[in-house]
């Protein structure tokens, strides 16, 4: 039981950076912007959070710095892709590399330092329940925040006027513009929300999962988050499913190796990718529905007709 609880907790921790980054990117993409610089925004968030916690010892300030730096990176992308109407794919790739370089420069002098332990939730009574207590009430606050963000994004996109407008500009920006919505301004907001979430995901990595700073520590998680959004057919709850599947199978395969299960390690390493893709493709196999949720203006530049 103890081992099972530990496996589940590790899986949640492994999934959380992906979840943050993917749910943010989902909002940006639903508004019609394809921002490929998730990896760059995550790693900048990671060093922003880490350097702030070293300087101030305050976890809250560190998270604020990570959110802000991710949003600034996204705004930079907005200037290139929305204001100057540069190619979105090229701008995203360029900013991704820029983020990796910037973080390496910023991080000089921070490697070898230790972040203070991240506070964990403790609910008297509830956190002491064997098995479930630790699992449900004993984690760091960011895990709960990431789950809340999924619910919030799902609710806003599907149930509110703001969500409807965001989806409308992602679906047909000319029509949305014609009835008076400010396409570019709203896309900036969606982008910056995505950047903020990616920054938070990066900070989760450098403050909670692996509380240290090493160059390139995101190690491709931004790209996995991007893939999750597409394979989840742009639906928030499927992003959650995808991220937890990926995290869960990653941890399970490590444990099964340690237990001595006789399956090739290479196959096990491939399993998280394979299983996540298969499951998401199978549940999203209805072509018509996928076409309905895929933002039709994704990646297309918007020219306001004068």
């Amino acid at each position: 039981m103890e081992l099972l609880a530990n496996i589940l907790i590790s899986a949640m921790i492994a999934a959380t950076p992906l979840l943050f980054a993917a749910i943010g990117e989902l909002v940006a993409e639903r508004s019609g912007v394809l921002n490929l610089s998730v990896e760059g925004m995550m790693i900048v968030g990671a060093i922003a959070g880490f350097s702030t916690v070293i300087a101030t010892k305050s976890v809250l300030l560190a998270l604020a710095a990570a959110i802000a730096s991710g949003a600034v990176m996204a705004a930079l992308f907005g200037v290139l892709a929305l204001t100057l109407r540069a190619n979105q794919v090229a701008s995203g790739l360029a900013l991704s590399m820029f983020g990796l370089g910037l973080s390496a420069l910023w991080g000089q002098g921070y490697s070898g330092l230790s972040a203070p332990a991240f506070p964990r939730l403790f609910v008297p009574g509830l956190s002491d329940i064997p098995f479930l207590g630790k699992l449900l009430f004993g984690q760091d606050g960011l895990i709960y925040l990431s789950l809340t963000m999924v619910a919030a994004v799902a609710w806003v996109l599907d149930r509110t006027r703001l969500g409807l407008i965001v989806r409308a500009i992602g679906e047909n920006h000319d029509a949305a513009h014609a009835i008076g919505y400010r396409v570019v301004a709203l896309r900036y907001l969606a982008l910056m929300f995505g950047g903020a979430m990616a920054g938070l995901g990066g900070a989760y990595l450098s403050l909670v999962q692996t509380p240290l700073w090493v160059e390139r520590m995101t190690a491709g998680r931004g790209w996995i988050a991007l893939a999750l959004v597409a394979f989840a057919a742009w639906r928030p709850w499927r992003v959650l499913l995808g991220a937890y599947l990926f995290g869960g199978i990653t941890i399970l395969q490590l444990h099964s190796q340690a237990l001595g299960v006789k399956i090739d390690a290479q196959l096990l390493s491939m399993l998280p990718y394979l299983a996540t893709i298969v499951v998401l493709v199978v549940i999203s196999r209805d072509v018509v529905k996928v076409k309905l949720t895929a933002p039709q203006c994704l990646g297309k530049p918007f020219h306001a007709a004068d």
Partner: protein
Amino acid sequence: MRASRLAKLVAGSAVAGLMALVGWAAHAQTKPKVSFVYVGPIGDHGWSYQHHQGLQALKAEFGDKIDTNYVENVPEGPDAERVIDQLAASGSSIIFTTSFGFMNPTIKVAARYANVKFEHATGFKQAPNVATYNARFYEGRHVIGLIAGKMTKTNTVGYIASFPIPEVVMGINSAYLAAKSVNPNIKFKIVWVSTWFDPGKETDAAKALVDQGADILMQHTDSPAAMKFAEEKGIYAFGQASDMASFGPNAQLTSIVDNWRPYYIRRVKALLEGTWQTSDTWDGIKQGTVSLAPWSRKLPADVVKLAETARDGIAAGTLHPFTGPINKQDGSPWLKEGEKASDKDLLSMNFYVAGIEGALPK
């Protein structure tokens, strides 16, 4: 008239171009460029970091007699060939490619640039202009295996492995045999993470191993993430490639430290003197390429003595970590009583020794 003027112009610019080319070549000859290709970031505080220390040593040793440059974060695969080719084409005199997976790209590019010298770390393919070099890390693994066997309370060592190549397999076998020799109940739990560098995944692997009872961690991956995790958990770990004590002041018992400086200085000196030749170098504790970070204060005196005796024995050549009788995992005999493993056997090692549980990925 007009035609001859044109001809003069063409001839004139050709001569100018040629002179520029000769001048460039002469310049290139007076100042060789030494290039490095790293698989990880130089800030990984492990493998690539130590090679970069070697580059710094070259700068200090030869000053303005050489130019240096490097490319970091080069993935093993098609990208590597492009990077190495680019360095060769842009005037490098010697290129050090510092990861096992750069072997085939290095050989391929070297065939195209006969005048450029190549040095490939940890591989086994040579050519007239490709030398190989490696370090006997398994000697260091023997020493940490002895320490782990003595220091574990759960009799379980957690091992974070990268890829099933001979160098890594050799390390596991060496550490296991040493640990087993001082602790017959020792068990190794081995997790392959299929990456050299992913701090998050290395931490996850460390966590999985500790959840399953390991109380000492060994790693053959490049980041200090596992050391940091061990420090948090209050258990012991061994650093990899460089001294990781700053990440685990209480956790680190010692580290296997790669010191490439002497080799790099020797080879670039040979290049400058025109005596460079292809070679296959495999140095270890004796030559100082493999060294051990200062012992932790938590090691009892008898364990320190055991470790130092082994280290000094290896340096003196009286102790070989792979001395028979040793059987393979499947029970078939490998080394007879007193027989020592040949370098050829070691460099192609693709089996676990008897006693290790789990299947070695192929």
